[in-house]
């Protein structure tokens, strides 16, 4: 356990150095390039959020994009109000909405927005979780229910044009001002803001997975019934991790809106939800760091390759995903872990051979019958 913690903290330290020093240096501190990379980092957070529910607790949430979307819309609503000043947001006028809908009013406040971006997804995630887990829904049914919820939720958002901007989403946003600092998303400082958020999210994830809470979740993942007989309220544990995961996804969504400067219902699409699952699977769902790295790697590749092979990229992504699921179900993290173990065994054997040469009757091997 302690060695595992040490290994994770070491990985976090290396990752932090790469993200904080390595990447900006490689990009030549170029604001535009770093903005693109900040997008990957924001997606890293939603990927690690999925790793918490899917990896630690075995709950495959195919509706992660919905909670991500809630966060992104919360932020977009605040920035839209800011851009509109005292006037009604433009799209409301086009949709004949006479005055600002009630649910928009509190988003004038940044504090409320930040809280809502975390708590609304957590609350909705918690409701769905309670609904499912009290009835002991598990396995593929969790995947199907969350998927159906996502489809319904996206439909609602598109349907309610007057409030959400419908198909177009929320565009024409003002820049965020945080404690008097007007955030320029093409500035190095913005990259550090997102990087800091990712590090904080990883730290939260590591804390959760290494606490007894994380242990109980792994126990539930393996055998929920057995865990009940030890007195644990399994539904509550599952609900709490679902809430935390949803809140982190909302957080990622808020950052994503900041990076792209708009919010769109495509963030809540089935294919986006699938993309999150792919990143998480490629990186390795057992580790929050690996899941975040998975998102960064896949998106980095997509950014580089999708210009070269426009249609081919999605094909390659599909093939890679199928191969990952088939041959390295634990992702890159699992692959590296296995290689590491194999190397260790090899060196152990060598050391054993060197340490006790007298006990090894050498000629036996050559003398064995074939």
């Amino acid at each position, binding site marked *: 356990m302690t060695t595992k913690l040490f290994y994770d903290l070491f990985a976090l330290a290396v990752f932090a150095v790469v993200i904080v020093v390595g990447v900006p240096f490689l990009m030549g501190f170029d604001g535009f390039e770093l903005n693109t990379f900040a997008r990957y980092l924001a997606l890293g957070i939603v990927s690690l959020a999925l790793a918490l529910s899917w990896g630690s607790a075995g709950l495959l949430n195919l509706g992660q994009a919905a909670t991500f979307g809630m966060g992104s819309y919360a932020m977009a609503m605040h920035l839209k109000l800011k851009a509109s000043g005292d006037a009604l947001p433009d799209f409301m006028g086009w949709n004949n909405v006479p005055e600002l809908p009630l649910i928009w009013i509190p988003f004038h406040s940044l504090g409320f927005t930040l809280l809502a971006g975390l708590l609304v997804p957590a609350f909705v995630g918690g409701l769905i979780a309670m609904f499912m887990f009290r009835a002991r829904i598990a396995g593929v049914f969790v995947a199907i229910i969350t998927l*159906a919820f996502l489809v319904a939720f996206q*439909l609602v958002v598109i349907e309610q044009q007057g409030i959400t901007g419908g198909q177009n989403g929320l565009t024409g946003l003002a820049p965020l001002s945080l404690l008097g600092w007007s955030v320029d998303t093409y500035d190095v400082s913005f990259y550090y803001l997102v990087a800091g958020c990712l590090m904080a999210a990883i730290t939260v994830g590591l804390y959760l997975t290494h606490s007894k809470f994380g242990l109980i979740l792994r126990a539930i993942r393996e055998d929920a019934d057995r865990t009940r007989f030890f007195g644990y309220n399994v539904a509550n544990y599952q609900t709490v991790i679902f809430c935390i995961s949803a809140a982190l996804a909302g957080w990622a969504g808020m950052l994503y809106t900041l990076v792209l400067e708009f919010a769109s219902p495509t963030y809540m699409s089935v294919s986006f939800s699938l993309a999150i699952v792919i990143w998480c699977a490629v990186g390795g769902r057992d580790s929050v760091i690996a899941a975040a790295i998975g998102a960064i790697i896949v998106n980095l590749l997509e950014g580089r390759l999708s210009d070269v092979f426009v249609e081919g990229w999605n094909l390659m992504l*599909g093939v890679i995903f199928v191969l990952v699921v088939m041959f390295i179900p634990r992702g890159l993290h699992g692959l590296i872990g296995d290689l590491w173990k194999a190397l260790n065994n090899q060196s152990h054997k060598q050391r054993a051979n060197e340490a006790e040469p007298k006990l090894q009757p050498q000629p036996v091997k050559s003398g064995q019958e074939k």
Partner: protein
Amino acid sequence: MDVILNQIFAGLSMASILLMIALGLAIIYGAMGVINLAHGEFVMLGAYAAWALQTYAGFSIIVALPFVFLAVASVGWIIERVIVQRLYHRPLDTILATWGIGIVLQQLVRLFVGAESRFVKGPEILSGNIEIGGLIMSNYRIFVIVFSLAILAASWALMTRTEFGMKLRAVIQNRQISECYGIEAKHIYSITFAYGAGLAGIAGALITPLFSTIPTMGTGLVVDAFLVVIVGGLGSLLGAATASVLIGEATALFSMLLNDTLGRIAVLAGIIVLIRFRPKGLFPSNTRR
């Protein structure tokens, strides 16, 4: 009154399409517990196969059906052999793998056929409508309804009245013991998967005159078909049939009362609640797994 009758007919028409798509899915899910998210792409392949046969060989949809069935079934057979077979013991991973396969198939079609919408003509004999008072029923839709019932009956007979069906049921109940009696479970699974895929292909071919044929057409359909299967109950053909009528009619009804989008939302919400309270569906199979 006429509005209601027409809505009921629209609901039935939708139910028949759902049923055809869901049947293949229900058979695959019931037989091997595989949630095949590539099923929508099988439907799409069927639609494109029908388009290709009509465009390049001049086949009418009805003539093309057997060829479409064979073509999509062989794609399904290959996919089962190469990929799905390795994942039977990991149900959650089959969801992911088949999802990935779906993306691949979709992109392949996009690359080689193109992303634009393709048009397929309905058969001439079935053009026109039957009108009873204010109720207007298109002949083609009536044909699809009848055809879906025929496929339901054929599949039911295959599962219960043939040696293959008996072997399949034996494998579903206990794979090890069946293998001891010389039934090749692997074979049975491959054929079942291929059959389910072939049915999806037929469904795809039949809906070409009603839907636009585009590479992404399967994505929306698979979610609905899945809900039909889950609502109907694990692998129950009768359940799938009842559930498709239920969902088809409910969608038509809510669409009339509210609007299309809200109708769909209401149906999805209803289904979620139903799964919550009856996770084994309306017609759970009463054998222990």
